[in-house]
């Protein structure tokens, strides 16, 4: 049931070098793509039904087809600013097989006629950026980058651009601002980056895993690729499983396998004697699911139907030794810190949610505070330029809905403790 595509031989020694990648048949797809017409390549990508692996899950081929035709400068940006709590798949892909990403990037640039490309990598991944820069230099040397790639009419300049530590720069328009040398604030959409992105030019932005999949699609053909996975969630997916599991790490699966198989069989499930209390199926910004949802197939539509999302394919498991309040507080504090402050509902909403959760922790809250907190979450969703605020509101809202009893019990016990302390202090 498990198939390796992107992760095939990922730990092979020397795979990160051009020689090692070529030995495995690397860069053999590029000449094939360059012999095809640009629209034929684009068509393959559309027909593969590949959905973006960065979180939104939009059709990669369709997004690429939105770029206008014409002679203007077009840009391709690879989003390697992986900062979603719990996500670490792109790091492993870039660290161990950087040329797979570069080959995919060149093909995607050819399909969209983009002539300048950037890999925007988060600053914390400094050692991965070093590996990427070496790989880019090797590819340049070998003629895969630069003017007239492999004697075709395609030109491509590629640079690795390092960020400097800001979660918000993973949001595509904030990433563009950061790449333009500004503070990473999201932009109003529309215009979408496909029309007006980097330096106001048409820009395609794709996640590392999405671009790393491109050579495989062109190599095997869209017709073969759609046979992997399930309808509407085609292909394989690298899933980062972490938290209270015995074997945390990245696993490549065919979309549609059962979540239990992934969490309990591959990742080993929670430590002995512990039960799964809740899990985030798509990073800390996805609404939480419980042990009852473990038999759901792990694919885009099933997760959406269960009221959550697959997001970037990032599972965080929380076992029953943890208090849901502590988890909620960690999530809320993260988003408070990372909110860029541009939109009021997000800036104020994240701050007040943290304050209210801390009030519950100190035993100074009343049950009404839970309703107020839930309403704050509702008022953030859909009211900001980007989805950072929603990313806090959705999991917090779902935790209040699913674990209300536990929040209330905590409130009571913390208040009783506070009262006892006050009485003792008075006596």
């Amino acid at each position, binding site marked *: 049931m498990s198939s390796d595509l992107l*992760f095939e031989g990922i*730990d092979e020694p020397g795979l990160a070098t051009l020689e090692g990648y070529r030995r495995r048949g690397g860069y053999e797809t590029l000449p094939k793509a360059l012999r095809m017409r640009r629209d034929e390549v684009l068509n393959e990508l559309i027909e593969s039904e590949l959905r973006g692996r960065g979180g939104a899950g939009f059709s990669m081929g369709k997004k690429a087809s939105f770029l206008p035709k014409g002679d203007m400068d077009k840009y391709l940006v690879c989003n390697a600013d992986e900062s979603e709590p719990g996500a670490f798949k792109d790091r492993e892909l870039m660290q161990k097989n950087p040329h797979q990403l570069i080959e995919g990037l060149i093909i995607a640039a050819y399909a969209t006629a983009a002539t300048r490309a950037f890999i925007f990598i988060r600053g914390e991944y400094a050692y991965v950026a070093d590996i990427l820069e070496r790989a880019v230099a090797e590819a340049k040397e070998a003629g895969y980058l630069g003017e007239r790639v492999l004697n075709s009419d395609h030109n491509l300049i590629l640079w690795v*651009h390092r960020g400097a*530590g*800001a979660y918000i720069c993973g949001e595509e328009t904030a990433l563009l601002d950061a790449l333009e040398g500004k503070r990473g604030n999201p932009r109003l959409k529309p215009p979408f980056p496909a029309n007006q992105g980097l330096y106001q030019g048409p820009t395609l932005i794709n996640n590392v895993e999405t671009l790393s999949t491109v050579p495989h699609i062109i190599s095997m053909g869209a017709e073969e690729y759609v046979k992997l996975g399930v309808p509407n969630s085609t292909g394989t997916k690298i899933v*980062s499983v*972490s*938290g209270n599991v015995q074997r945390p*790490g990245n696993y490549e699966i065919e979309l549609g396998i059962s979540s239990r198989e992934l969490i309990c069989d591959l990742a080993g499930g929670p430590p002995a004697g512990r039960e799964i209390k809740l899990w985030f199926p798509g990073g800390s910004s996805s609404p939480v699911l419980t042990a009852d949802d473990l038999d759901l197939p792990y694919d885009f539509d099933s997760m959406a139907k269960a009221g959550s999302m697959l997001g970037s394919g990032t599972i965080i498991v929380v076992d029953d030794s943890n208090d849901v309040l502590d988890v909620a507080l*960690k999530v809320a504090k993260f988003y408070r810190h990372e909110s860029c402050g541009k939109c009021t509902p997000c800036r104020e909403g994240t701050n007040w949610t943290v304050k209210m959760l801390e009030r519950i922790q100190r035993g100074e809250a009343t049950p009404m505070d839970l309703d107020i907190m839930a309403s704050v979450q509702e008022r953030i969703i859909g009211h900001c330029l980007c989805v950072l605020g929603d990313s806090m509101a959705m999991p917090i809202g779902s935790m209040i809905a699913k674990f209300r009893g536990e929040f209330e019990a905590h409130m009571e016990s913390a208040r009783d403790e506070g009262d006892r302390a006050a009485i003792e202090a008075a006596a």
Partner: protein
Amino acid sequence: MTPPPERIARFSHGSRVPGWDEAVDLELDPAEVPDPATTEVPDDLRDEIEDYMARYPDRHSAALPALTAAQRRYGWCSPEALEQVACVMRVTPAYLAAVATFYDMLRVDPAPVDTHAIYVCTNISCSLNGADALFDAMRAAAGDDEHFDVRAFECLGACDIAPMASVDGTYVGPLAPADCVRIVGQCRAGEEVLPERQFARRKAADTLAREAGLK
């Protein structure tokens, strides 16, 4: 219920908001693009920044790599460092100050040149595995040595080795609070940090699952 007054931290001037030690002089004009004739910039720093500027259609894009380079040289984004970067990039120092204050990895508080950046991840996956105790231990191990910038950092993207820390850009984990003294010692001695537990030397979980016949 309002917390009792002594629980609110206040500055010496009585406010909860930090004030300014010196009043702003409203007569002053804002700083302009520094004059290359009077601003001294070390040659290697200038070359590095100019190299970055040449990579992009718009020179402003070089702001982040240029500030990172300046920080590497001076330890932090000091007023002099901003002045020099601004001079090469032909922007105002205020533009760069606005950028520098946005990003977590750029230091805007004084730090010595050879500062060790130790980021302890305290996000969900790491905190479920004891990151908060690890952070306290790391702070205790570094003490008040100004050469250590120990920070509780947001998810560093290495939840498979939770709890973990990034030591001058090298990812190490899983860590126990007892490892912190060794890490700080290795930094001081200029040695490689916990070589056996660096992320870069780990096999993918997928590979291990395959080897174990789980896949």
